[in-house]
Each structure stands twice: as C-alpha cells, then as structure tokens.
C-alpha cells in the first residue's frame, strides 16, 4: 500500500447491472456461467472476414435510442442504454438521486474506444474532396469523443455531479472504482455510478489481428495450446455508496483496490509481473487483508501466451498454490475497456450465489503455470474475491470485492 494510504471504508454496490454476449442482465449472465455456455461465436461483425471468434451482443444493429437521445446514437451508447435498462438499475439510481440530490451523485465511466465505430464509418463515407459527412461531424462530441459515454450516462440518469471518463485501455473500468472512492472520501459526492462500456469496432479487431493476438478458435485461457484472445463487448454499471450510509449486512462491497504501471513496454507485460504484483499488494494493503483471506482470484486471463504466463507468476508468487483462480473470458471474450466492470460484477455474482466459475475452454492446463487454476465450476461459499485487470501501456488495476457481515 502507498505510504500514506488509509484503509478503505467498504463501498457498497447497492445496485448493479451487466450485459455481455451471454445475455441482458445479471440473471442470464449467471445462468450462462452456471451452464458453462460461452457467448463466443465465429466473427459475424459487419463485413469483417477475420477468422476469429467474438462475443457480440445481439440486437445492437437494430436499435433506437429514441428522439431525445438521438444525437448520442452509436453502437457504444446503444450498448450503454441496454445495460442501464436491466436489473432495475434506473430505479435504484433514481432513489439515490432522491436521497442525495442530483449534484451529489458522480458518474465515473471507463471505455477504451468509445464510439470510434462512427468515425470508421464516416471515413468510409468521405466525399470526393475528402470531407467527412455532416451526420458525423455534428455528432462527434456525442459519439466518438472519449467523454461521450460519461455525457450519455449522465444525461440518461439526470445526474449533475462530477463526471469523467477514464480510458486506460483494458484497465479503464476497473480504475473507475478507485476514482469513485477518492471522490466519495473527499466528500465531493455521496454516491457514484461506476461502470464501463466497450463495443466491437474495426480498430480493435484489425489492431489485435495485426498484433497477431487473436485466436482462431474461442479463446482458451491457461490452456497449454492457447493461441490468443477473443474480443467481446459489454456494458456494466454499479451504484456505489459508503457502507457507513447504507445497510451493510450481507451486502457486497468494494474492499480494496490497487493501481500501478509496469513502466516497461506499451504492449508487452513486465516479464516478472512487477506492475501486477504491485497492484495486487496495494489492493490487499488497502483492504487490510492477507493473501490467505482471498477465496478466489478472477484472473485477467486473456488467453494470450504471454499474459497468462506473467499473470501466473505474479498470482502464484503472492497467493501460493492453493488459492483457486480462473479466467471468465471464455464466456464473454475480452471486453477491453469494459473488462474491469464485467469481471467485478461476475465476482459479485460468485459472492452472492456461492460458486466459482471454472476456466471455460481450458482443456489441459498449461503445465508451466503454477497457480491453482480451476477448470470446472465449483459450488462453495465465497467471501472475498480479487479481480485482476492489466492493460496496454502497462496499466494495471486489482479490485477486492467481498460480502459484508
């Protein structure tokens, strides 16, 4: 833990919602986890001929936000809208707004590519002079600009507190928890909507393809034959309040977080996992916990050769060989800027329902990995979970979630 950091007052997740390729809302996602049903399918996104699997959310192509929100219309905000509609989330936010006032509820969102798909389409639609179409230029602010998601969520929920969009590649929507905690602790808000949305686009599909990091089959985290990641898309949101202000018993809460950098390379992790180790230790320190207090580690587990090996080094170095670990990317794909919130909320489902997901698609665990990697689902009570997210630029974040007594 940084020298002067205070132990965290747990932050309750009063309400939460999640949409992935596995379904709309936490119910269908939980069911898919239990039934070990992957959301990954052969790539059918637009006209993309890449031989890869994707976790596409159904129905976004034919979707209307309605007149009032029309200027925000893009795939990313459609997905955000879909997320906001599930699990009674809007009602819970309306109640919080009533309780605290619209100025006292912050919005902290994460995304890596925002509505870039609109810009990709606009470039394809340039006129003979090379100019972009007017339907695009007048709406850039509401679609592709990095803040668009924050603007949209704030508009949908009628909130007037501080707002920002964090964009640190894959760690974006894990770091939102840390920023929200600081805003709450500084007394700048009484509640915060945290979350993240990332949607499929050409930039990431062709970008990861150019890096030769896309698997030709559904991704197989921790498998000895793993050959890369599968891209997915997701939207997830949570309402955070201080556990001193809302009833605690049985509630799921954020207990700690750790943020770090590798300081090593833009797209390769530090070979010894130095940044990952720092993030995990920082999260444990802030939660006032020891490694043995953690019942399960939700790995970043992208299924690239390098990520899984380096993460294993960091995790087994801290937790030893007994703590169960798994990656859930075989269900959702790597949802990039939404991976943090997706896996935080999957962890919440594990805590609430007392089960651990095994690593879907992992047939033979890579014998060079030392951690206790779960292949099959397990049913057991779980009290505390650590979730890892590591991203481009060597940007790392670990979260600890747990059930309050």
């Amino acid at each position, binding site marked *: 833990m940084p020298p002067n950091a205070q132990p965290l007052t747990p932050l309750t997740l009063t309400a939460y919602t999640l949409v992935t390729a596995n379904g709309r809302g936490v119910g269908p996602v939980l069911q898919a986890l239990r039934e070990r049903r992957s959301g990954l399918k052969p790539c059918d996104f637009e006209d993309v001929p890449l031989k890869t699997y994707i976790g596409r959310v159904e129905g976004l192509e034919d979707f209307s936000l309605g007149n009032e929100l029309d200027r925000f219309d893009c795939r990313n905000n459609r997905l955000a809208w879909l997320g906001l509609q599930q699990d009674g989330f809007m009602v819970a936010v309306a109640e919080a707004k009533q309780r605290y006032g619209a100025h006292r509820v912050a919005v902290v969102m994460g995304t890596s590519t925002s509505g870039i798909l609109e810009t*990709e389409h606009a470039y394809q639609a340039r006129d003979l002079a090379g*100019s972009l179409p007017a339907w695009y230029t007048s709406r850039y602010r509401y679609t592709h600009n990095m803040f668009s998601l924050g603007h949209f969520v704030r508009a949908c929920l009628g909130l007037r507190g501080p707002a920002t969009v*964090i964009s640190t590649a894959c760690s974006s929507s894990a770091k939102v928890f840390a920023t929200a905690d600081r805003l709450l602790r500084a007394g700048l808000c009484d509640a915060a909507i945290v979350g993240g949305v990332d949607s499929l686009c050409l930039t990431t599909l062709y970008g990861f393809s150019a*890096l030769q990091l896309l698997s030709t089959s559904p991704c197989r985290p921790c498998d000895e034959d793993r050959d890369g990641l599968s891209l997915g898309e997701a939207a997830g949101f949570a309402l955070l309040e201080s556990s001193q202000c809302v009833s605690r018993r049985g509630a799921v809460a954020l207990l700690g977080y750790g943020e770090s*950098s590798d300081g090593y390379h833009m797209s390769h992790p530090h070979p010894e996992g130095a940044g990952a180790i720092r993030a995990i230790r920082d999260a444990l320190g802030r939660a006032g916990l020891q490694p043995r207090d953690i019942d399960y580690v939700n790995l970043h587990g992208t299924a690239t050769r390098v990520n899984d090996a380096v993460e294993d080094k960091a995790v087994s170095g801290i937790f030893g060989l007994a703590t169960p670990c798994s990656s859930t990317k075989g269900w959702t794909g790597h949802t990039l800027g939404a991976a943090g919130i997706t896996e935080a909320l999957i962890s919440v489902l594990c805590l609430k329902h007392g089960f651990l997901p095994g690593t879907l698609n992992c047939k033979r665990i890579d014998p060079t990995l030392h951690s206790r990697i779960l292949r099959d689902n397990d049913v057991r009570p779980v009290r505390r979970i650590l979730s890892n997210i590591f991203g481009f*630029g*060597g940007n790392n974040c670990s979260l600890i979630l747990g059930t309050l007594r």
Partner: protein
Amino acid sequence: MKVGIQGIGLLAAGLEGWRAGRAVLACTEPFAPVAVPDPEAALLPPNERRRSSDCVRWALHVAQEAIAQSGLDPREVPTVFASSGGEMGVLDTLCRTLAEPERMISPTLFHQSVHNTAAGYWSIATTCQQSSTALSCFDDSFAAGLLEAITFVCVEQRPMLLVAYDLAVPAPLSEARPIATGFAVALVLAPPSDCSLAGMHLRLDEAHQDEPTGLVDSALEQVRQDNPAARSLPLLRAIATGGSQRVRLSLLESQQLVLDLDPCRN
C-alpha cells in the same frame, strides 16, 4: 481541499516553457505566438522518440519540465493525463487505413492509439510503476484532470503529476473537432506543507451566476477557447501574477471548480 504547486511545465505557441510563459501571462512580455518546434522530449530514447506521436512528445516534454522543477523523483510520483481526444493524429491514420479495402493497420500504430499512450510512454521512460490514469471530459478535460489530481493528493497525502494536452487536429477529423493549435501543461501538486510556487484551495460549486474565469488579452482568450488543455490558462495566469486570486473553471454545465490561489510564504 488544499494543495501546493511544486512544478509547472508549459508548451504552446508563444508560451514555450514556464519561465517564458510566466512572463507573458504576467504581462511583462508580449504574447507573440510563433509555431512551436518539435519538442525535445529528451527523456525518450532516440528510436522511441522517432516512432512516438506528437501527443507523446508534447506531453512528456511538459511533464519533464514540471517534475524537474519539483525536484521529485519521477519514479515516486503517480500521474493523471487529461486530454479531450487523445491521439487524434493516430486515429486519423488508423481510420484512413481502415477505409481502404485491405485494412492493413500497423501494430505499433494500434497500440499507440489508446488514450493512455502518453501516460504509458511516461511510465516507460521514467520506469515509474505508480498509479497512472488517463481521462477525458471533452472541453473540461483539464478541470476534470485537476479534480482527479487534487482529490488524489488530498486523500492519499502524496504528490501527483497532472499533464493536460490536446494537439491540433488534422483534416478531415478537424471538421468534427476543430482544434487549431497544440497546448500542453503539467503541474506537480503536493500536500500543502510542501508548497513552493503557490498554494491552491479547491471547492466544487454548483454552476453559478459567476462566469468561468476568462482572459483579458483577446489573443490568449482565443487560445483558451480553441484548445481544451488551454482552459488551464486562467489558473496559470493567476500563478504568474501572484497574490491572492480566485479562478473559476467550468466542469460540465452544472458545476465549477473554485480555485483560491495564495502565494507561498517560503
């Protein structure tokens, strides 16, 4: 919430470096904008420097100036990088390539397209393993970055480096987001006991009948309005002129950061 300002880095046409910029902002030198030469960004190894984007070089250049002034070891200082659009030049190249039938994009260009590219290059160049955040709040990205940085300093009781930058947007993307000239600024903020340049008290206020602070000089005011990172100019001007001053920065339509500046006693 109170912090001390320990170092400032600045780069824009007519405002090359804090020393020159301070003289202009304190009105002891005229504002004479001429095109800024490619920043040195001396921290970057030559091969990385060649491959890096303009954003990276501008951001690292001002970050280095501010951190040098603070006398802190950059490996010990967490960072926040604030930019409205981030790597707009890289995104222009990527989207052009993706509009061609082959869509053969460069892997290097792809990993340089993320919003945290400058943040990543800074941590690599300094081998800093501290927390690093990259964020956006459209035109109010500087204010949002400042809020994140001050909150961090006050809650964690340790220094932080804030870097805000936006560069001129290339055509045709400029039709969607016109930004005519580049601007980069860096502030090293620390708990108030370490104050060296100025002390600053922050309050978050509901939007007010008082307008956000602007600049009297019309040429500088034009820069402020053109570039989101240049929304820092009223704060920089207050530091440059010294004395006790109040600066209001807009944070979305609904709120304002109210900053009360005090000269340091030491």
